């Protein structure tokens, strides 16, 4: 068995471990589902009270806007807060024992976070589908576009997990990762279009948002509710793939610097 295959096998096992851990914490998942339902229900009421007749954009009615928020919230709630685990391991020094393992630390944490994230994603997607249907009486997209929508939303979630790991690995330099996370998170919320689609933003802000990776994580997948044609799906997946490369590169760079620092002076 080659080293790469052994590493892949270990990462798969770690992803399964993350899945099982998330499944074992079903009470937390149930609580998360209830909290997830809050903003969806809140925005269902807000969109219901909003004078949407003034909007001339296609499919920007209350039902589609509720579906939009449901999808962005599934992505955000499924990725959870993996940066906290990295931060805690660095601050407590526990990371040092994990650096001796044959699988690179960041890859191992990424695999575990993705395993847990996938379980949460599927559970919240199913719950969100039921909730959205109950609130709107419609489906988010045409049945044939459901799978591409799920894939795009999951990719957005994975990109968020990678971003968060980079934030967690910055702990040795900034002492506490949470403040940096808040700013990143609000960047995601605002420039990614968590609650309002970018199509409703002022033009200048939308233009700025497109220079960031945030729309690829939230607006593009959730925006499929406004246009679920093959062209829109392809454009969404292509942009996500294009942004995944620099995100992975950034994570690899910060990982290299962090690991070099740990080996040089400890956590």
């Amino acid at each position, binding site marked *: 068995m080659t080293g790469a295959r052994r590493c892949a096998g270990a990462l798969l096992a770690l992803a399964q471990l993350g899945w099982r851990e998330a499944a074992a914490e079903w*009470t*937390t998942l149930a*609580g*998360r589902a*209830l*909290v997830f339902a*809050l*903003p969806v*229900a*809140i925005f269902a*009421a*807000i969109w*219901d*009270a*909003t*004078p949407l007749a*003034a*909007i001339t954009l296609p499919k920007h009615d209350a039902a589609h806007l509720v579906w939009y928020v449901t999808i962005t919230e599934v992505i955000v709630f499924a990725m959870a807060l993996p940066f906290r685990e990295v931060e805690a391991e660095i601050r407590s020094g526990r990371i040092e024992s994990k650096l001796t393992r044959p699988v690179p630390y960041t890859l191992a944490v990424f695999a575990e976070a993705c395993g847990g994230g996938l379980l949460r994603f599927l559970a919240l997607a199913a719950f969100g589908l039921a909730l959205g249907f109950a609130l709107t009486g419609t489906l988010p997209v045409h049945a044939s576009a459901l799978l591409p929508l799920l894939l795009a939303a999951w990719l957005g979630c994975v990109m968020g997990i990678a971003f968060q790991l980079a934030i967690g690995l910055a702990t040795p330099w*900034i*002492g*506490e990762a*949470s*403040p*940096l996370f*808040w*700013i990143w*998170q*609000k*960047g995601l*919320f*605002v420039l990614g279009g*968590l*609650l*309002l689609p970018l199509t*409703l*933003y*002022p033009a200048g*802000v939308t233009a700025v948002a497109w220079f960031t990776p945030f729309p690829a994580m939230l607006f593009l997948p959730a925006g499929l509710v406004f246009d679920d044609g093959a062209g829109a799906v392809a454009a969404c997946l292509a942009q996500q793939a294009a942004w995944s490369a620099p995100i992975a590169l950034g994570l690899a760079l910060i990982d290299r610097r962090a690991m070099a620092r740990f080996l040089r002076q400890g956590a």
Partner: protein
Amino acid sequence: MEWSATLRYLAALARANLRQAFARPGQAWTAIVMMFANNLLFLAIWVFYFARFRDLRGWALPDVALLYGVAAWSVGLLVALAAGVRDIGGAILGGGLDVHLGRPRHPLPSLVFSRSTPAGFGDMATSLVLWLAVAGRSLHELPFIIAMATAGSVIIGASLTIAHALVFWWPRAARLGEEVFNGMIMIAVYPQHVYGFAVRVALFTILPIGFVALLPVEAVREADPVRALIVFAAAAFYAALAVLVFNRGLRRYRSGNLITENR
């Protein structure tokens, strides 16, 4: 005399926590500035909303800014002075409550005032900016608004205490407190006047966010002393309820009851 002694005790606990929180001033100030920026960024969503729509059933940006400021002050004050309220469940499960039971006073104040989170001051600073610069409120209105928001802080703290105290009966509810905290924040920062009757009833009973955000904001907007009195009465009621639930649960507490958790 008893009241003044209690207040002196609480003030001493808060001072000790603040000294500890600012032991690393660089980190503390970074957290404060980041939280301030974080709040302003979040408000940007409403700026964009009102750039597109004229109003939300009678509310405009200044009203949302007033609401956001009240919610931010309520949460900020709580975590700046009494972040220990978020650790109650963990202390019960881990046996950490023993430390507080060994003291000559009721364990709840020392438990609640056992930790300070500097980021809370960032929330409070945001509130002042939002009230004065965005909501268009005047300086002489500030004491009233602060009193309303502080009552909201008491209600959030009491709700969290109740949620965490459930661990006395149900050890698996350890994370429920944090979910309640997140849920309360999430609801508090959005306009609640658009909800239907059933949701409003829930907001004034099960998860009493209506007393934290909607009612204080309406009291300030209408300069309504009756609504203000209701908010203060709700704060007193939920604080008393929290002490009652905690005391009932305390009777079930067994030192170092990790065994209960793992059973």
